[in-house]
């Protein structure tokens, strides 16, 4: 079986990830922040080490601003709903995943906010950051409070210019929220240089951690309201959640095994080098793209060549049929709509969806060639 669905989750994980998770569950998995016995503190020590690793990896000097969640969707919901107030206006990109689109849409349906979708121009000639921000500026209103964008698309190779968008937002006093689900561990991200107010990411994709790990990282002065309340292991006799970060946002028991797995995953990414990983994946993507574009029945949706996700369809077959045929031939890819209604609309694939190929750190050129051969065989039948 050849795994080419790293945009859904990276697989297999580096051996240090499951090894540390198992070690944790066998040797030191007390409840962090609940009591001060040796095993509770041992778990807490590893969790703090992971906060430090996440913060430094993304250019922050504040590990206490790393808040662990179960996934990127939970992180985005907390940031979005915790920061927006009634009457706010929000800008989201036309490449957003439903993790952004749905909470924003719901808030708008309830009449609490309004929002506009801005064009990332991924299908247009002459696309550049200046043109994107020039268009964007026409959508800004006096009550525009937040701009949210995916750094890298989850369905194609589009990557958004975070530095320019961050500068755009801060010049206008707009909160800049980034969904790094498809870029964390694939592309360099620096909270300060990119002027990001809130960075949300899963642990189980490019950071090579386990499912059930995710986080958001807040810039200085950013203090969302809480989305859930409960035990925090601190100031237990009070009715309110504590103000201190990250305990304010981490009600309930954290998943220590998932977080220590994430710690090992990030260390593996650092060892390999995020630039090298990204370059390797993009090279595989381009190699496959050049092969698929030579097949007359295949349409490749590849507006840019910055990311490592490739989207295509085969004439005469639904995306699901192609996905199933590839599965029978030993390839794991994802067909359909990829929880990305806006992005598929932008690329012009909303009716049938498409097949997504997302190579990862451990795939090879030989595997990409074998995949292209398999698509050719499907086209001949």
């Amino acid at each position: 079986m050849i795994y080419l669905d790293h945009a859904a989750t990276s697989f297999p994980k580096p051996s240090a990830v499951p090894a540390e998770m198992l070690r944790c569950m066998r040797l030191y998995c007390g409840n962090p922040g609940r009591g001060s016995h040796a095993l509770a503190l041992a778990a807490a020590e590893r969790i703090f080490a992971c906060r430090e690793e996440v913060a430094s990896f993304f250019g922050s000097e504040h590990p206490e601003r790393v808040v662990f969640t179960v996934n990127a969707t939970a992180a985005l919901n907390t940031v979005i709903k915790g920061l927006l107030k009634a009457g706010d206006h929000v800008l989201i990109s036309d490449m957003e995943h439903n993790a952004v689109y749905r909470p924003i849409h719901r808030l708008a349906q309830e009449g609490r906010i309004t929002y506009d979708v801005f064009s990332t121009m991924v299908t247009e000639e002459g696309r550049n950051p200046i043109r994107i921000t020039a268009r964007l500026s026409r959508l800004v209103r006096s009550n525009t409070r937040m701009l949210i964008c995916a750094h890298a698309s989850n369905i194609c190779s589009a990557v958004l210019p975070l530095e320019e968008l961050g500068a755009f937002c801060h010049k206008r006093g707009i909160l800049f929220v980034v969904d790094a689900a498809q870029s964390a561990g694939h592309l360099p991200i620096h909270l300060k240089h990119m002027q990001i107010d809130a960075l949300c990411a899963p642990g189980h994709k490019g950071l090579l951690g386990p499912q059930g790990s995710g986080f958001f990282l807040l810039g200085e002065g950013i203090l969302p309201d809480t989305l859930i309340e409960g035990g925090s292991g601190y100031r237990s006799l009070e009715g309110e959640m504590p103000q201190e970060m990250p305990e304010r946002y981490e009600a309930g028991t954290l998943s220590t095994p998932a977080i220590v797995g994430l710690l090992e995953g990030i260390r593996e990414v650092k060892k390999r080098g995020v630039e090298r990983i990204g370059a390797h994946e993009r090279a595989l993507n381009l190699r496959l793209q050049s092969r698929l574009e030579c097949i007359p029945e295949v349409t490749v949706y590849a507006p840019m060549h910055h990311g490592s996700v490739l989207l295509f369809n085969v004439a005469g077959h639904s995306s699901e049929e192609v996905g199933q045929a590839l599965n029978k031939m030993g390839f794991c890819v994802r067909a359909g709509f990829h929880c990305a209604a806006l992005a598929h609309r932008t690329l012009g694939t909303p009716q049938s969806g498409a097949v997504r190929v997302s190579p990862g750190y451990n795939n090879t050129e030989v595997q990409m060639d074998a995949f292209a051969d398999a698509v050719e065989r499907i086209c001949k039948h």
Partner: protein
Amino acid sequence: MRNATQKKEECRFMIGALTQAMQAQRVLLNGAIKSEVVGADLRQGSAGCGYGVTYPCGEEIQARNLLRKAGIRVRR
């Protein structure tokens, strides 16, 4: 000003939440001051659970200075 419970040669600062206490411990260890994270001394009138850090009683001034420079507040 010392919020410490002397126990042999070990004193402790009450810090607050666990993550803050972990940060305080890092600061002290980086400053070559032996330190451990401990549960807070819960007295009547406290707001509930919390955490602190230990330090050698003879190094209180250095410990307090290191924490202040790091922006970590020592609570009573």
